[in-house]
């Protein structure tokens, strides 16, 4: 269907057609380029400013080609910049985010795979209803859960702790991971499972020998979805942690909010990039799977 423009034009006189086609092509690429610039320029601005000297930024404004190149801002942003009275740079919050994101991603993905396997291959009476109930978690606004979580985290001693955030993200993530895996496992033929059962394979054996080996595509999608989502989350981070326990998104807001640093664009740019690099890496390395997760998450 992409060749409408091409195939129908060829029916007419070649010269006129090819001239018109040239124009159409020029407009298409022109528009794409304009949009691409709009999308890329903000990223370039941050990357440039993270390497420009602050006096130069103050003189020439934020949006300008770099005339100097110096990595000092990165060192400051990573190691010793002061955020809310703590002068340890972003590294502390970066670790917090890793410490939160990696376990929460692994646990929620594993649970999602198990749940998806059960809800597609070991269906029981009422399992579809239960699945629908779990799905509702996808739509829940975080605000509804704030007070209950505050209470529960206090009770189990996980207030102001990265592990409290792990718990929250696992519970919230289960609905997504279950949805992804269940919808994927449904397409694995039941006959395969039936044959295995006749051969005497049980629940776990079928999972490890048949389902898991078929799972890499959906597990990659799920891991990418969970990793970027949890890394980028802000509301729970800012509500349930403070000071040195905060994840990187909350620390970034604290950094850019503190009045004294308002003009240190070089360090703030480096800090912003430190916060953006992990999900960007995941995106550039796993682009295809990222998009797949996006479209599956949207159209259920």
């Amino acid at each position: 269907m992409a060749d409408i423009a091409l195939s129908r034009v060829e029916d007419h006189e070649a010269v006129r057609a090819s001239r018109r086609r040239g124009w159409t092509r020029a407009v298409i690429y022109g528009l794409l380029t304009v949009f691409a610039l709009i999308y890329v320029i903000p990223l370039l601005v941050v990357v440039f400013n993270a390497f420009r000297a602050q006096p130069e930024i103050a003189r020439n404004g934020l949006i300008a080609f770099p005339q100097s190149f110096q990595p000092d801002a990165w060192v400051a942003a990573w190691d010793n910049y002061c955020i809310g009275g703590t002068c340890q740079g972003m590294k502390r919050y970066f670790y917090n985010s890793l410490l939160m994101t990696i376990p929460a991603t692994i646990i929620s993905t594993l649970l999602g795979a198990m749940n998806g396997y059960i809800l597609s291959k070991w269906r029981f009476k009422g399992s579809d209803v239960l699945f629908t109930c779990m799905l509702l978690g996808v739509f829940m606004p975080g605000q509804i859960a704030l007070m209950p979580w505050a209470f529960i985290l206090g009770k189990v001693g996980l207030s102001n702790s990265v592990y409290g955030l792990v718990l929250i993200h696992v519970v919230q993530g289960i609905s997504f991971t279950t949805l992804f895996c269940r919808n994927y496992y449904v397409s694995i033929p039941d006959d395969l499972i039936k044959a295995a059962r006749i051969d005497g394979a049980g629940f776990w054996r079928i999972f490890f020998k048949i389902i898991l080996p078929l799972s890499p595509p959906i597990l990659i999608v799920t891991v990418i979805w969970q990793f970027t989502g949890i890394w980028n989350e802000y509301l729970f981070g800012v509500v349930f942690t403070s000071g040195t326990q905060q994840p990187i998104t909350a620390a970034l807001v604290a950094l850019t909010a503190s009045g004294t640093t308002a003009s240190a664009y070089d360090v703030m740019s480096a800090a912003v990039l430190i916060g953006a690099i992990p999900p960007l890496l995941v995106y550039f390395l796993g682009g295809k799977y990222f998009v797949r997760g996006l479209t599956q998450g949207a159209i259920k």
Partner: protein
Amino acid sequence: MSLERASATRPRLFGGRRLGELVPIIVLAPSLIASFIYVFVFSIWTLYIAMSNSSLLPSYGFVGLSNFESLWANRRWNIAYTNLFFFSGFYIVGSMLVGLLLAILIDQKVRGESVWRTIFLYPLAVSFIVTGTVWSWLYNPVDGIQALVRSFGWTDFSFALASDRNYAIWAIIITGIWQSSGFAMALFLAGLRSVDGDIIRAAQIDGASTFRTYRKVILPSIAPIFLAVAVVQIQFAIKTFDLVVALTRGGPGVSTTFPAIYVYDLMFQRGQIGEGAAAAIMMLAALAVVLVPYSLFLVWRRNKEVRNG
């Protein structure tokens, strides 16, 4: 065919079930219980707080709907949901238009398709905090776009969206569109690729122009995708929080307050937990108003497809 039926003829030992059949339920139980608590218990809990006299700390003296009454009487809440409607409208239409345009452009057999796609989609990978922070710099009149244009010689050029209370919401709309039109593009592109090639060829044989083919044949056949994109983006809009925090922090004044900002403020800055919970319930209600009809529609459509084979 499900396994439940396949195993129905086997001997049953344990409470009418074989022991082995309980394993799936046992494995599933923790997730089920957690999800159940998360979805139902938390909602009802928050609803109960919304009907209590909680202020600085949750307390459970029942006060009926008075928190909802004071919420709806509040001028700032009024601004918050007016903003939500205004933002949602322009944000959804804007990102769908941009997304559709990009999808159609990419669909014209362009070279380097994956490069274009990668560029338009990358904002989705980074957080709203990152996007909002960077754009707040661009909107900054002293250092950002305004300064750039003025440095070209247009010295009275004015572009201070984020710091003007009448226009600050546009800063959020534009940034929101920038962040999520790639998402619309991805869905539209998937839709365009799924359109049956025969009906397009038929339209071309009838002499329809490219523009007409899109308008009359292709776009109508991907109508469900428009709906799906809109529904997902309404959800984004209702939950909008991080982007506003990073861009304007709800200001100048209270001009860019959103429901999610309002909830956070009342619960954690002003110690009015009861009314904050009432606002959270209103967010849930808004989501339900959108999602319940949509899921009913999806079920209806699926049933229709099943009936028609």
